[in-house]
């Protein structure tokens, strides 16, 4: 990672080290690989074998490939011939995934590529609530704590379902 040269990351990140590149002989920065215990991502669809198609625009697939274990939630399960990735989507093999969970609108209030966009009104409501600990607690009480998935969807995005 040559880009860290000359930055203040050199001072604050002890785990960013320089080594001599054995090929060019130049000093280069190296960073430790990120190895998450878990990756949890929301994908667009799965087949019954647990292969999925997810967004190509984010680093979701990369997170699953890096993690020791992973859970992928999906909008729907489709027949194998319907799984094919379109532009903006990418195939992710069941080989890398430990659990697939069917969770329609599981990305809410964020968006899911080609299925639904960001629920801006809800995100704005959350941002306003999360400015204070009390507001955050109220938000959780209203939408999350003790609520089933169906209740959340009814409360949070009933208008869109």
């Amino acid at each position, binding site marked *: *990672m*040559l*880009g*860290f*040269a*000359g*930055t*203040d*990351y050199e*001072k*604050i990140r002890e785990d960013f080290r320089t080594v001599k590149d054995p090929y060019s002989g*130049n*000093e280069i920065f190296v960073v430790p690989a990120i190895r998450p215990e878990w990756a949890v991502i929301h994908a667009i669809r799965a087949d019954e074998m647990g292969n999925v198609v997810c*967004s*190509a*625009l*984010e*680093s*979701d*697939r*990369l997170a699953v490939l890096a993690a020791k274990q992973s859970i992928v939630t999906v909008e729907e399960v489709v027949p194998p011939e319907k799984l094919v990735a379109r*532009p*903006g989507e*990418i195939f992710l093999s069941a080989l890398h995934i430990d659990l697939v969970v069917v969770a329609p609108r599981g990305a809410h209030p964020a968006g899911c*590529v*080609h299925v639904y966009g960001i629920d801006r009104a809800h995100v704005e409501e959350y941002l306003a609530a999360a400015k204070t600990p009390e507001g955050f607690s109220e938000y959780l009480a209203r939408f999350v704590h003790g609520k089933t998935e169906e209740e959340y969807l009814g409360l949070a995005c009933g208008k869109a379902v």
Partner: protein
Amino acid sequence: MALALEGCLPEEYLAFQVSLEVRDFERTAVGTLSPVPLLGVLHARARHAGHGKFLFFGSEDTPVTDGSRELFDLAQRGKLDLFFLSGAQVDRKGNINLTCIGEYAAPRVRLPGGAGSATLYYMTRRVVLVTLAHSPRVFVEKCDFITSAASTPHYPWRRGGPTKLITPLCTMEYDRDAAEWHLASLHPGVSSDEVRTQTGFPLMPEKVPETPSPSPSDLALMRAQIPLLRRSYPLFAGELARKIG
């Protein structure tokens, strides 16, 4: 005197300056949270850079299969010609701060962070900085934290770095040998004194030309890009359309 524009919004004026940095047949990328650079690049693509290749993040049309990793790989391989960055602080030497205001251990303001800007500043052939404010708080002698370094003479190799800085008052050019900014042009109605007062480091030369203004046909073409801009920045595009009327 302050910026005096006729028939053109400040955002459009800055986006026009961005468009002049885009060259045909090159690869240009625009990151997230960059509505003014995106408008400028969309305009350039329609105006003079129709053979270029473009990568716009924050849009469902982004032509990648592996997220932002593809942008970084592209830049590392030397195939990214032009990218845009900004900073909460930009210093005399061209360094950018996107990390914190004040001491890192006890910051007065904690900023969102660099998100790969260090590598892109180093590996992209030309990086144009665009700021939406011009004050001594933004343009400082030395950044509180250097998130992305403009010049690294003590390292053996570097591909690119800053070339130009576009602000609401002026444009500056980066002198790689001196490793600092030079004043390049003043926007209409902006005096040399005003820019110096609003900049926290010395700026030379004294006399510079006026920044070019978009022609009526440029403005019309740029405004025709607003529907495309809206796909990435619905709120910004909506507000722009409202101000244009």
